[in-house]
């Protein structure tokens, strides 16, 4: 058991290492080289990795542990964003109150939606959560226009009251943490043709990711987490064992809703606007894909899945026909045209096609997600080592 504790510390340190050095690790290619578009080490994209990582970690507490598949978690993401932007409009551009309110309000929403949806399980639960999320989306889009600003989305304006730091001058206010502006680059340097950028915004997100990851780890290792896994395995036995399953699942639902609200608030902190499309069912589906792709029920899987999907979304969608023509330029004319035509549907606007194929491959060949793949590789390597050691000890066959 102390062994798992040591492993947890190692895992946390590994995540911390990658989170803190991501601006360097994700920039392996020279910025004017042909592979520059595969770099992911720029603040905007890294922030999205981390924020959707938090979203997926929270989703995994519900889906990975209890097995309840929610198709409506984007509603909480949206609620978090709207709450945060309202805090920017009314109180101050400091991100702390915005994050706190985002988490609280989405927790409240999760309590109500969870209380009703958790009366059913399986497919009926999924449909109920989906219905609630679509209702929220439609309300945000039309009925609640005074609160959500409908189609245009909620933005901060110079005319906002902002009690604590009322706008002076005509400059558009920016989000900050006690004066540290989120979009500010505090360090930028070039090394071997690679541009490295360090912004406050990314590091705020990264530190919150680490805290979120640590909390999720503690939940996984607690008696509470064990009960949640028991809910997934055999709810019937659990209730005949003296456990009231409903409050356990509701707590898990609220916790994961608060994680989603946190992610939504962070999105607004990095870019202070909130739109209804953040609540749409495609966004709910995306977090399901992230979690399953990475490995539901594992600690690290959801973060990997989120990074995987966001990386390919960005990289593939930026590859247009000009880029393709440059790639295949070394070929004879007809042939390069042919290859451009073949590859074209899979990149640019068609990146969903590639992602879909990758998702299918993972689900068919690695039902446990990317973590399953990693485990198989580790088993294979260590098994091979063991085999070769055994081989070395075995007496050489007589010739």
């Amino acid at each position, binding site marked *: 058991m102390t062994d798992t504790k040591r492993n947890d510390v190692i895992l946390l340190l590994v995540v911390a290492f990658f989170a803190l050095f991501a601006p360097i690790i994700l920039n392996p290619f020279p910025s004017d080289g042909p592979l520059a578009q595969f770099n992911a080490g720029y603040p905007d994209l890294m922030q999205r990795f981390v924020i959707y990582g938090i979203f997926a970690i929270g989703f995994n507490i519900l889906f990975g542990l209890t097995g309840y598949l929610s198709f409506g978690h984007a509603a909480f993401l949206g609620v978090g964003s709207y709450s945060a932007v309202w805090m920017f409009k009314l109180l101050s551009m400091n991100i702390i109150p915005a994050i706190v309110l985002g988490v609280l309000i989405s927790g409240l929403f999760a309590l109500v939606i969870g209380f009703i949806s958790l009366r059913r399980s399986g497919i009926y639960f999924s449909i109920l959560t989906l219905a609630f999320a679509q209702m929220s989306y439609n309300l945000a889009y039309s009925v609640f226009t005074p609160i959500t600003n409908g189609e245009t989305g909620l933005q901060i304006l110079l005319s906002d009251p902002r009690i604590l730091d009322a706008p002076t001058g005509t400059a558009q206010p920016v989000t900050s943490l006690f004066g540290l502006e989120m979009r500010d680059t505090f360090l930028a340097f070039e090394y071997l043709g690679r541009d490295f950028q360090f912004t406050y915004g990314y590091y705020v997100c990264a530190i919150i990711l680490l805290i979120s990851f640590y909390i999720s780890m*503690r939940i996984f290792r607690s*008696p509470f987490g*064990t009960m949640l896994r028991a809910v997934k395995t055999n709810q019937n036995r659990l*209730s005949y064992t003296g*456990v009231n399953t409903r409050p356990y699942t509701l707590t898990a639902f609220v*916790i994961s809703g608060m994680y989603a609200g946190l992610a939504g608030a962070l999105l607004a902190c990095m870019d202070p606007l909130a739109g209804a499309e953040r609540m749409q069912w495609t966004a709910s589906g995306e977090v399901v894909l992230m979690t399953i792709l990475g490995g539901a029920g594992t600690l690290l899987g959801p973060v990997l899945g989120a990074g995987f999907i966001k990386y390919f979304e960005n990289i593939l969608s930026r590859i247009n026909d000009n880029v393709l023509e440059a790639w295949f330029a070394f070929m004879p004319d007809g042939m390069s045209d042919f290859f451009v035509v073949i590859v074209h549907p899979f990149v640019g606007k068609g990146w969903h096609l590639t992602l879909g194929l990758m998702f299918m491959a993972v689900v068919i060949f690695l039902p446990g997600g990317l973590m399953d793949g990693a485990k198989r590789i580790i088993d294979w390597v260590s098994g091979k080592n063991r085999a070769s050691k055994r081989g070395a000890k075995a007496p050489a066959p007589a010739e």
Partner: protein
Amino acid sequence: MRILEVQNVNKRFGGLQALNNVNLNVNKGDVHAIIGPNGAGKSTLLNCFVGRLEPDTGSVMFDGQSLLGKKPHQINQTGVSRVFQTPEIFTDLTVLENVMIPAFAKRDGAYKLNPFARVAQESEIRDAAEEVLRDLGMADKRNQIASEMSRGDKRRLEMAMCLVQEPKLLLLDEPTAGMSRSDTNNTIDLLKHIGETRGITKVVIEHDMHVVFSLADTISVLAQGTVIVEDKPENIKGHPKVREAYLGEAQV
């Protein structure tokens, strides 16, 4: 002293009177068997004890309090554990975790929010679970995933999950259904062993007469929803009403 008192319990499913004025008394420390032909209402009666079914009329008193209107987890918290016909266990979890969960439920009640406690530091719970596993001869399997075990071991594990709660009353629904002769004998030995080491009152529903007569202190015979005889095993065997219930009136 009576621990379970069932009085005038009726249960109707549509046109079928499944239980018809059932009266049953279980004495503390006894092994009380409920036998009867198929469709006699044995499982219906058991389900009325654990909160899965609610009787239409009548009362079920356990240890001085009524069990009616309580949910399964509330009834378990009063000290009633049950074993299912097919073992109900947490198949994805390890054997040790399977036994620790009921121990948590016994200590922490129906719900406890402790997301920052560590399972690894719950040494009392672990010790209790390991002791029960040792007692049932499963200590070496504690890290096995429950779904990978044989059927006999699953039954044993389910028994361990009930025993770790130190229940006042253990309900067993056909514990040897579908078992081979040798597995059945193992289960009988296990139940005898539990009886010797712990004074838990047991109610056993059983088809197998061999099992019933080797375990029971008292037998109730249920037929067509009514208890027709309640007596000691030696008086049950030749009882004319029992013969009639099992073999039909044509014999008379």
